[in-house]
């Protein structure tokens, strides 16, 4: 449990505390006029000392407390959510076997949830989502109270990882069960039209592309629609990917690419980032950005002599990654090898405290302010009745 302020700038209102202090001081420094005939026997040498003494200190205290409470109220005090009931939190990564996870945590006091956005209960069905696993793991880590242990049940193969192994603030209990993460983002699930336009002399390249698409569809059935046709058909409007297999290409293709298309172009000696290399390191294909789209340029035709990879079993994956572009970064790993590390103490101290689940204290502070106001009024009027100045 810890106390926090959501708007610490509200504490600037504490400056208002100087007002009652000044008021009570000023009243103190006023000298009371008294008619006194025996004046000459009062020593003139002793000057009145301007001592810091407050008139009616209890009233001053009540007023200061009232102002401090109001300032705190402005700063929006919250209490970090308390985990006083000792509930342990266990998370099941999507892809892991829920039955195995339940078997692992089949005891009272374990809150078993999916490692998915907003952490639904394990009993609920898991909806598709696009948030990477590493991000969810860090979020779960940040939302745990200090000192708790993070139980995670993961499949053998993890997906949705990023470049760095997560460093967690809490102790980790890492369980690997059977299963494989299906890390494909749901946003990419739409059907993709892959148009192939070929000149007659390049028609020999077609079987390799057909084989690659067939391999894709074997993994994701019916997702990739191949539309192979001669050059005369032109570029279809609904195609997302295009393979232009011809010695020359019209400006129409470049315009389509610049509108956001991704094209695999043969017979293109233009520049770009090296994409594929052979065993000697010479560049086999280059990728270059063209407007909103991208071109994968092959210097020659798509044939085993120029590009031995087309005969390789990896070609389908290579081509898919090249066309998908950003998906090229590896995001899958073996779960046992990927066990996150514990953050060092310094890292944990430096880490900005994430706003976890908090309980607002506004109502309590408002009530306290009201009570203090009543006390202040009672004190002020009570002393006034006694005839104080």
């Amino acid at each position: 449990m810890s106390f926090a302020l959501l708007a610490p700038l509200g504490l600037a209102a504490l400056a208002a505390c100087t007002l009652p202090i000044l008021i009570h001081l000023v009243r103190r420094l006023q000298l009371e006029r008294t008619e006194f005939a025996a004046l000459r026997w009062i020593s003139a040498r002793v000057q009145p000392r301007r001592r810091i003494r407050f008139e009616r200190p209890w009233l001053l205290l009540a007023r200061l407390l009232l102002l401090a409470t109001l300032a705190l109220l402005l700063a929006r005090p919250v209490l970090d959510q308390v985990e006083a009931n000792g509930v342990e939190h266990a998370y099941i990564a999507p892809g892991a076997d829920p039955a195995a996870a339940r078997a692992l945590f089949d005891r009272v006091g374990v809150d078993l949830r999916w490692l998915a956005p907003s952490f639904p209960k394990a009993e609920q069905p898991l909806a598709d989502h696009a948030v990477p696993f590493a991000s969810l793991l860090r979020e779960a880590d940040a939302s745990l109270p200090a000192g708790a242990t993070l139980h995670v049940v993961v499949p053998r193969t993890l997906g949705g990882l990023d470049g760095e192994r997560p460093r967690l603030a809490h102790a980790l209990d890492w369980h690997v069960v059977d299963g494989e993460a299906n890390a494909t983002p749901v946003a990419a699930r739409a059907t993709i039209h892959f148009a192939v336009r070929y000149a007659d002399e390049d028609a020999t390249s077609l079987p390799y592309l057909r084989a690659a698409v067939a391999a894709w569809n074997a993994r994701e059935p019916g997702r990739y629609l191949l539309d192979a046709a001669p050059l005369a058909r032109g570029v279809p409007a609904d195609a997302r990917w295009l393979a232009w297999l011809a010695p020359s290409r019209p400006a129409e293709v470049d315009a389509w690419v610049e509108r956001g298309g991704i094209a695999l172009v043969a017979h293109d000696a233009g520049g770009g980032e090296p994409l594929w290399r052979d065993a000697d390191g010479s560049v086999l294909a280059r990728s270059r950005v063209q407007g909103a789209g991208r071109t994968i340029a092959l210097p020659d035709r798509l044939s085993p002599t120029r590009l031995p990879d087309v005969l390789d079993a990896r070609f389908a994956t290579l081509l898919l990654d090249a066309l998908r572009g950003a998906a090229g970064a590896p995001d899958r790993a073996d779960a046992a090898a990927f066990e996150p590390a514990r953050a060092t103490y310094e890292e944990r101290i430096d880490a900005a405290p994430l706003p976890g689940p908090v309980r607002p204290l506004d109502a309590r502070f408002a009530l306290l302010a009201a009570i203090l106001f009543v006390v202040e009024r009672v004190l002020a009027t009570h002393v006034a009745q006694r005839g104080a100045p």
Partner: protein
Amino acid sequence: MTLQALVPVDVRARLRDLRLALRSHAGGDGLGQHTSRSRGAGLEFAQYRAYEPGDEPRRIDWKLYARSDRYFVREAERDSPLTAWIVVDATASMRHVDRAAPARGKLDAAKTLAACVIELALRQGDRFGLVVLGGDAPRVVPAGAGARQRDRCVLELVQCRPGGAWPAEAAVRPLWERIAPSSLVVLLSDFFDDAAAVLAERLASARRDVASVQLLGADERDFPFRGGHRFVDPESSAERRVEAERVRADFLERFGAARAQLARRFVANGIRHAEYLLDQPADLPLRRLFGAQASSGASGEGAT
């Protein structure tokens, strides 16, 4: 407003056993109040009254008995030599009121004391006069006797308001023409102005029997003030800005020394002196001055 308003009932009741007397003639317990000059009963005829058992046979008027066949006693008006002058200080410093009793100031107390002395003098049949010092010029009620004289004095007292400073030497001079030697002068003042004490000394050295009452407030005795104060002199408008707690001890010491010195000075000059604090009963200083034990000459015992 009458004498009853000036003198509380209980004080009035306690005045009964007090006697105004001159110190120089004190000591005898004869027939009259003032033994030296009074010739006993029958110096100046006043009235006849019927004989009552206990009257001396020699006081019966036998000639009248012969004419009327009844016993009558001649009564004579006693010739009192005593003239009591009451001098009231009504300067601005007498405006002082205590915080505890803001309704009754020093001048009110002085009026009460003056009324008590008037009451005593009236009861003894003595002549009395009143002098009020303060304001523009001294106001004088010439000496006289009787109830009407008392009313004149009480009226003057009631109308009197504090203000001004102690009159100059020249303004006080007419008093010497009126206050005859061997009169009793009761001086009611706070004696904060040295001129008052000087006047008392001069009167005493010129064969006037002076009894002085120094009126002091309870605040002057206790100095109960707290915190910062701006003390203002009502007469000179001088002021002192002090922290009351810090000057208290010093003030009490110096003020007490001043009071003791005044008492010693008056004793040395043969002046009966008593202090009267405003929270005391009004007959207390008179008892010290004119009570039975005071008449034997133990004067100046007013120090509390």
